[in-house]
């Protein structure tokens, strides 16, 4: 197993992110909820202070709960916590299993099919307002 690294620009190697990423997941490398994507929207179901039964969670789990008080994409959580997407998916998967967050999958866009015209109109109107 070798690690290659490529990107358009050098990555920021923040000192505080220098933790072997899968340590946080106790060595798990696969998410129980395989349907999670970069733009799956995550939202906490209860305020963090009311979440019981969350003992045993890693600090990162709690940081995720803080970040998804309002709906936010999985990729934004990963970027905000400076965690790889794969690790973030495993942690969010834990929270889904615990029932503390809900996940909304991206709108299904079938390849070769025309997307819903109302969706496209909404996107167009949004872009025109920029």
């Amino acid at each position, binding site marked *: 197993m*070798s690690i290659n690294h490529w990107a358009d620009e050098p990555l920021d190697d923040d000192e505080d992110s220098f933790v072997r990423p899968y340590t946080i997941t106790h060595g798990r490398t696969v998410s129980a909820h395989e349907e999670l994507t970069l733009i799956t929207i995550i939202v906490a179901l209860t305020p963090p202070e009311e979440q019981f039964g969350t003992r045993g969670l890693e600090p990162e789990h709690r940081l995720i709960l803080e970040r998804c008080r309002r709906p936010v994409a999985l990729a934004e959580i990963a970027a905000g916590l400076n965690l790889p997407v794969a690790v973030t998916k495993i942690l969010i998967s834990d929270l889904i299993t615990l029932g503390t967050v809900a996940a909304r999958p991206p709108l299904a866009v079938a390849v070769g099919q025309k997307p819903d015209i109302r969706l496209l109109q909404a996107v167009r109107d949004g872009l025109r307002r920029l």
Partner: protein
Amino acid sequence: MGYDDSDRRDWSAGGPTPAAVKFLIAGGFGVGKTTMVGAVSEVEPLRTEEYLTVVSVGVDDVDGVGEKDTTTVAMDFGRITVSPELVVYLFGTPGQERFWFMWDDLVLGALGAVVIADTRRLQTSFGSIDFFENRGIPFVVGVNCFDGFQDRTIPEVREALDLDPHVPVLMGDFRQRSVSRDVLLALVEYLMDGHEPASRPS
């Protein structure tokens, strides 16, 4: 669980959970992908990393078992909140398109793509164009002209990239929000026209 749905909804003050779609911004190294993302995003471009597991078939692969390599790819992305119900994400794809085929998450929820081209090295756009054509993902081509410098015409670019005639090609300085926005608008209007994804005769 001790609460009903209305309690949850009251608490998550953001209202309904929005639906998400995304556009992919592709093209070769340093061609201006993050520039375009940053020009239209409501937040500074964010960066995230993904691990891809790829099976490499080495030349010294005598036992027939491909070695598994983990490759890290980095993506810059941005966000446009269209409404409380809809958020559009823009993902700048990493170079090295040969890995994209093993990366289903890249295309999930993707409405379409912008392939950014640099007229001085158009060949760096070939991989992205092939990928989107093969996957049936509609795309437009944006030619990034810093400070309005144009050394090729749109027909020349179209010819060099062997594009189907209906694929929109736009030129401009993508640092300007209005220019980048217009490229995305051209993509959305192209999608609304309902052109079938290009299939290139080989």
